[in-house]
């Protein structure tokens, strides 16, 4: 591309030179040709005149010689005859013979208009224009007898120019060719210029188109993902359902066999028991398939997730082993959700198992609960209903997932683990169950840092309970334009979202995509009051390091962190100090408004944040 543009520029430069050069060459060529033509014509004209003069002089001398006797013996008739003989030459206009005293002796005129001097003087008139006059003295021996006077027309200019017509034609044609060459060159250059401009336009249009296509592809990819999950659910669902029924028949039959003790011996009993265990394992797998397909029979009841998590702690400790510490951060006043408790436990267990697998050298598992609100925008892009949800976030300090794994992690049978270790059905069960419960599941992960998986379950509203909206009920605190906020976020969409909210609230907002840009902005705008930064930033400076450096430069700067990770996970992993102001993604309009206002008012936001 750069190469192409270079050659293009080079062509442009050459084209420019040629454009400037060609008309000059054409003009010079035409001028030269004309000059050469003129010189040739002038030269010819000169030689023609000389030849003509010589010819007329010869004629004149001949006449002078022949007429001498007639002059000497006063024979006008003879003289007239001689003179008339010259009429054969059509160019001779006048021929005359004058006597020794200059008196007219004999003459011939082609036409009456030709003036003939009545007397001839010694100094003959010089040839003028198209006339050539020659006088020759008549002598016989030494004696002067008189003068011969000849007046001829030189070929009329038109006749002479007829002779030059071919030359003129050639010169004209050559000139025309030069001119046409010049014109063609100019048009070519213009056409090239147009073409180049069109090319640029085309590149621009192409760029726009590519951007559009990319956008659409992203949207389509998201849609495809949803559709793929749907299709997979349909497929696995159908098989799993039949399979489940068949397993019920097998297990039922085996149990009948076990009860008929007289029929079988101990040996057979052990065998039957093994078959039952295998069938039950198969039934569990099938259950998970059904879960992904959202076809498992659910038994939703209003439950308190805090209680459920607490009840699982023993199981989790056993599952995770000694090397992994477990933190649970449970929000007070948690809303109830309407869900199948067994399946929710299954889901949390699956997440815990995955966390354990990701932390083979030990680490920390954090389970948080919170009341949250998912707004229209977020709900729309994730195809869920906006509203109030209870969040259960499970975070680990494990290996994390690269993007391609993350995008497929929810799919059934997708695993990166060795055969026998992973079934690929853990996250698919979580996904299917949460979806079937009209909730929402989301993975945040950074390779090397860890993973947070957030489960949103819709708030359960009993008819007797008042529908209170604590966050929005108190009205949103407006911002002030003298409060300058710097938003630092590498994800352009999230950044735009945050900037949009803050602008709408009335804050003045600057934005930066990474730590370096943020520091530059801070130096350039000493008026920045609040640094609102993502914790995970690319470019060697994470959110915390950025905040530390910024604080060193302006000690009074307020800092608000944001992260996709659950707050306590981040704090407990030591990535942030407890007590810092933090808002977790996804955040709502109201949540950000409240949080930013709280930070500005110097209120300790951590209580509020933990409530989120």
């Amino acid at each position, binding site marked *: 591309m750069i190469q192409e543009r270079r050659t293009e520029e080079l062509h442009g430069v050459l084209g420019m030179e040629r454009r400037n050069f060609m008309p000059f060459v054409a003009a010079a060529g035409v001028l030269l040709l004309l000059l050469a033509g003129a010189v040739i014509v002038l030269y010819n004209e000169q030689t023609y005149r000389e030849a003509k003069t010589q010819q007329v002089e010869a004629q004149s001398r001949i006449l002078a010689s022949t007429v001498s*006797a007639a002059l*000497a013996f*006063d024979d006008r008739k003879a003289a007239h005859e001689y003179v008339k003989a010259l009429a054969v030459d059509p160019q001779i206009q006048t021929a005359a013979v004058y006597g*020794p*005293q200059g*008196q007219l002796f004999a003459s011939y005129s082609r036409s009456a208009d030709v003036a003939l001097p009545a007397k001839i003087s010694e100094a003959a008139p010089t040839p003028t224009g198209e006339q050539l006059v020659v006088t020759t003295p008549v002598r*016989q021996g030494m004696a002067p007898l008189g003068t011969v006077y000849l007046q001829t027309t030189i070929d009329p200019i038109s006749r002479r120019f007829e002779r030059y017509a071919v030359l003129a034609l050639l010169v004209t044609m050559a000139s025309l060719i030069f001119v046409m060459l010049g014109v063609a060159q100019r048009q070519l250059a213009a056409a090239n210029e147009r073409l180049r401009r069109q090319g640029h336009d085309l590149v621009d249009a192409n760029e726009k188109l590519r951007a559009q296509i990319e956008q659409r592809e992203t949207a389509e990819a998201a849609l495809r993902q949803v559709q793929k999950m749907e299709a997979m659910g349909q497929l696995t669902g159908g098989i799993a359902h039949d399979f489940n029924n068949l397993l019920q028949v097998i297990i039922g039959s085996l149990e009948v066999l076990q009860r008929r003790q007289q029929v079988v011996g101990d040996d057979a009993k052990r065998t039957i028991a093994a078959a039952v265990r295998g069938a039950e394992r198969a039934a569990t797998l099938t259950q998970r398939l059904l879960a992904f397909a959202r076809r498992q029979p659910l038994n939703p009841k209003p439950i308190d997730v805090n209680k459920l998590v607490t009840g699982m702690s023993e199981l989790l400790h056993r599952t995770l082993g000694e090397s992994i510490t477990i933190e649970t951060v449970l929000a007070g006043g948690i809303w109830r959700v309407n869900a199948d408790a067994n399946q929710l436990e299954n889901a949390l267990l699956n997440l815990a198992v995955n966390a354990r697998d990701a932390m083979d050298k030990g680490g920390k598992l954090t389970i948080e609960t919170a009341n949250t609100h998912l707004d229209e925008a977020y709900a729309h892009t994730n195809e869920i209903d906006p509203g109030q949800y209870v969040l259960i976030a499970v975070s680990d300090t494990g290996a994390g997932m690269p993007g391609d794994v993350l995008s497929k992690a929810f799919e059934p049978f997708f695993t990166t683990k060795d055969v026998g270790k992973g079934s690929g059905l853990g996250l698919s069960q979580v996904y299917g169950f949460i979806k079937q419960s009209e909730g929402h599941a989301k993975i945040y992960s950074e390779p090397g840092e860890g993973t947070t998986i957030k489960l949103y379950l819709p708030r359960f509203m009993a008819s007797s309970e008042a529908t209170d909206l604590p966050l929005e009920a108190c009205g949103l605190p407006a911002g002030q334009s003298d409060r300058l906020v710097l938003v630092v976020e590498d994800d352009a969409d999230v950044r735009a979202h945050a900037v949009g909210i803050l602008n709408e609230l009335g804050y003045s907002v600057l934005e930066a995509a990474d730590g370096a840009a943020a520091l530059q902005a801070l130096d350039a705008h000493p008026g920045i009051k609040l640094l609102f930064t993502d914790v995970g930033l690319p470019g060697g400076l994470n959110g915390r390091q950025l905040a530390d450096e910024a604080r060193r430069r302006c000690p009074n700067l307020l800092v608000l962190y944001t992260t996709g990770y659950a707050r306590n996970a981040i704090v407990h992993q030591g990535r942030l100090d407890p007590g810092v102001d933090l808002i977790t993604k996804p955040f709502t309009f109201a949540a950000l408004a409240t949080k930013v206002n709280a930070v500005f008012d110097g209120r300790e936001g951590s209580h509020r944040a933990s409530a989120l």
Partner: protein
Amino acid sequence: MRRKARTVAAVRLLLVAIAACLLSLAATHARAQTPSVEYAVKATYLYKFAPFVEWPAGAFEPSDPLVICVVGNDPVADLVDEAVKGQAALGHPIEVMHPGASSPDARCHILYVALRGAAAASLLERVRGKPVLTVTDAANEPRATGIVNFVVQDNRVRFEIDLRAAAENHLVISSKLLNLASRVSPKP
């Protein structure tokens, strides 16, 4: 200056000649040429023949004057002296002699025979074979004519040329002169 002097010297005759021309123009078809003009013209013609004649080698040396001999007596003969005054022929001065009929000068280049009848014939016979341009006038009715013989035609002085006689006298006559002759008798 010399040229001017010569011109002035020639004026008289030339005036006569011009007058003759003009008169001849005026009188071409009216009446005959005035006899005196006719004689003057003939007298002038005598030396005018010289440039159209080629004398044999030795007969006309560059240092020699052109010698015009006039033998006999007629109106023309009287005017010859007058006519050649101040004239030159082929760069030679002109000398006019009037020798006796019996002994025409051996130096004569042009001999005007102003004799009539047999006298003319005998004189012509005497110079036959000598490099002399003999001139006779038909008006004198000579028994024999010279190489050149004046005649008057249409009231104008013309001349006949006898090439045989010229050849006998070793003279070559210019074709230009022959072209003007009213009659040319051919060589034998």
